[in-house]
């Protein structure tokens, strides 16, 4: 018997304006409202709305089940720029076949830097989910599937029953991702691992003509899933929701593929669709898994190097953490909210310099000319934040950097 567990990540960052040294201290907005609105409405049309329709019909036809995690900042942008998308997701959740997971509101890396702030951002997320979907999530997934023992223990103590992580070969060794595991140092919480091969076949390779399995059809994929029968409890298909229609365009046939996949999967009487919570009720862990160093689902390395791999990323993160206490002390809502929105992991991803070797994924998503331009822009914003914290208005240009230095 093999269960199939779909989990989709839904996220859009608040993209930043290109913030130049001339903008510092000029009382300018950091976020590119026009672009964020455009992108949200484009993705809504290409992906969220049509894919939600596909899932709705699969739920009706096959009793299919799915799970989602929404970043808080994507929910905010639905409210602002595409309320119909939010309504459409609410309809899906109302069917009872869709589970929602928790994460940090700001899709941030904060667990790595401050447990206290992490708790605040998770609590804010929980509240937001409750408000929109009237649900309280029991399963946690951290930003970009960043995971280690410490995180598992921490969220177990926060009351979660399950947690998600990447299941790549070099992490698992001979072990299979098709079972539940017990994180080292934990008692109750169960670990669900992404079947990265099958997940990435859909998310990354679906339209790759040079791939030997191209074109990927529903019967072929169902056959691969069936091969796991008797050799595991679950196939966890974890991917970005934007895979459908945005990364893989409609013209690649991705919607047709997903519409037919449940037909094919259901041909095998043992196959069943489940949500993460159903999985953890159904199965016990087969072994303990010891993951000390943080892993993620990004790039071939599956580590943190997409966000904290080079000195400029480290400097930017250090800077934003450094001003945290000062921001909180001001007690100014707008400052606090900007500070948190600036923690979204995407801003640091744009500063990654390994993208020249490691595929065009980084380049495709990068709105800046180069990682170096992304860094300069971000640091200019940090300088502007300092002036706001210190309530300095209309500074002379030659004093701007002195103010930032005086902070340390």
């Amino acid at each position, binding site marked *: 018997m093999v269960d199939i567990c779909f989990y989709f990540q839904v996220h859009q960052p608040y993209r930043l304006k290109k913030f*130049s040294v001339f903008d510092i201290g000029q009382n300018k907005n950091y976020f590119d409202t026009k672009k964020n609105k455009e992108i949200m409405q484009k993705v809504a049309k290409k992906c969220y709305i049509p894919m939600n329709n596909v899932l709705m019909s699969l739920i009706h036809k096959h009793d299919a089940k799915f799970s989602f995690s929404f970043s808080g900042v994507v929910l905010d942008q639905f409210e602002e720029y595409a309320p119909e998308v939010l309504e459409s997701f609410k309809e899906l959740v109302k069917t009872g076949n869709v589970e929602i997971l928790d994460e940090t509101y700001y899709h941030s890396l904060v667990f790595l830097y401050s447990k206290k702030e992490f708790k605040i951002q998770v609590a804010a997320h929980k509240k937001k989910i409750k408000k929109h979907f009237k649900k309280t999530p029991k399963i946690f997934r951290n930003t970009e599937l960043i995971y280690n023992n410490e995180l598992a223990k921490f969220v177990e103590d926060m009351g979660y029953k399950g947690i998600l992580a990447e299941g790549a070969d070099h992490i698992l060794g001979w072990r299979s991702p098709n079972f539940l595991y017990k994180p080292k140092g934990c008692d109750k919480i169960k670990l669900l691992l992404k079947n990265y091969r099958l997940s990435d076949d859909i998310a990354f390779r679906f339209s790759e003509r040079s791939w030997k399995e191209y074109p990927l059809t529903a019967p072929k994929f169902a056959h691969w899933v069936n091969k796991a029968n008797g050799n595991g409890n679950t196939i966890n298909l974890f991917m970005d929701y934007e895979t459908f229609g945005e990364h893989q365009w409609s013209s690649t046939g991705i919607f047709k593929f997903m519409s037919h996949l449940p037909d094919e999967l259901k041909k095998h009487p043992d196959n069943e669709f489940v949500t993460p919570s159903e999985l953890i009720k159904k199965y016990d862990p087969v072994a303990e898994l010891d993951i000390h160093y943080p892993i993620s689902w990004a790039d071939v390395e599956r580590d943190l190097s997409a966000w904290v791999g080079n000195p400029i990323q*480290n400097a930017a993160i250090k800077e934003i953490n450094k001003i945290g206490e000062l921001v909180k002390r001001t007690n100014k809502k707008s400052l606090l909210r900007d500070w948190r929105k600036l923690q979204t992991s995407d801003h640091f991803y744009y500063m990654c310099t390994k993208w*020249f070797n490691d595929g065009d994924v980084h380049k495709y998503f990068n709105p800046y*000319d*180069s990682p*170096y*331009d992304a*860094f*300069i822009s971000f640091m200019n914003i940090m300088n502007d934040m300092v002036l706001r914290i210190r309530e300095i208005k209309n500074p002379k240009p030659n004093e701007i950097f002195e103010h930032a230095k005086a902070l340390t």
Partner: protein
Amino acid sequence: MLGWEFPPHHSGGLGTACFGLTKGLAKEGVNVTFVLPSLKKNAKAEFVKLVGANVKMKKVNSPLKGYMNSETYHNYKLDLVKEGSNQYGKNLMEEVARYASKISMVAGLEDFDIIHAHDWLTYPAAVEVKKKTGKPLVVHIHATEFDRCAGENINKAVYNIERKGLHTADAIIAVSNFTKARVVNNYGVDPDKITVVHNGVDMKYKPVQEGIALSESEKIVLFLGRITIQKGPEYFLLAAKKVLEFMPDTKFVIAGSGDMDSYVMQKAAEMDLGKNVMFTGFLRGRDIDRAYQMANVYVMPSVSEPFGITPLESMMNNTPAIISKQSGVSEVVNHALKVDFWDVDKLTNQIIGVLQHDCLQETMANNGFSEIFKINWNESARKCVNVYQRFA
């Protein structure tokens, strides 16, 4: 191979490029006879030692030099006449024609399969040789008249020579896609005839770390190149003015010489930049490396740069580069900041970014240094050989 300058007697990137390419070709087993105009008879042995045994050098007596225009030729010729030599052309165009006919005589004495000519001064000679021998002609474009004049006041005679060379050629090598587009659009050349071969950088040449003491507070921004309209020195001054508003202690160094020397110096004075902008004059050899190493950041604000080798030299010296998007080198380099030459505010922002954040300078320097290993002359030479082989 027909060129116009060669190290150490060179004034710009063309000499460096010919040197690198010839060395690369020698490694590929190509026998090269390098022909160039010269008044000096020495340095032949040194050349062969530098380049390789299957290369020989042929100097043909002429006062032609790299980056010459009618005015510089005229002044140079006056000096020669004073010294008693009066056999050369009355003006630049006459001398180019006289040189061409001399070359075609020399060509009859040499054994070769391909004519490979670098830039317009050699094109009339190359066309003559093709006419006389019937051998295939490959012309290599490092810069067009449009680049040299930054699009203003094109010299019609030069344009016509370039056009004739390009249309007579059996194959064309352009140093970038940027240049290829220019040749197609401004000279009406069939794009299929053009192969893009990016320049390389000679990594065998290890710069000397001079151990320069830098005071922490004093940051240095460098311009290095010929001071001509093509290289955009004015944009460098405009950015300097703006950077100084934020960082008043910054020093701006302009290294090089050219026909805009006095104009740029005067302009700097007018803009009240006298205390912060320094002129070094033309630099050679180790002084060039020293200049790069002293700088915190190198800026190439060229208005129109077919390739642009200096950012690679800068990266080789562990100094990050900010390069004009209107350049060929921006097609091959990832680990640099890029900017439209006219966007002075963005350039200012990038300069300040590097100067303010040591970690940025360091990251760009490290990544840039690794990157340029991939941009070498052997690769360029191999691509040239592929072009030659079409005629084998």
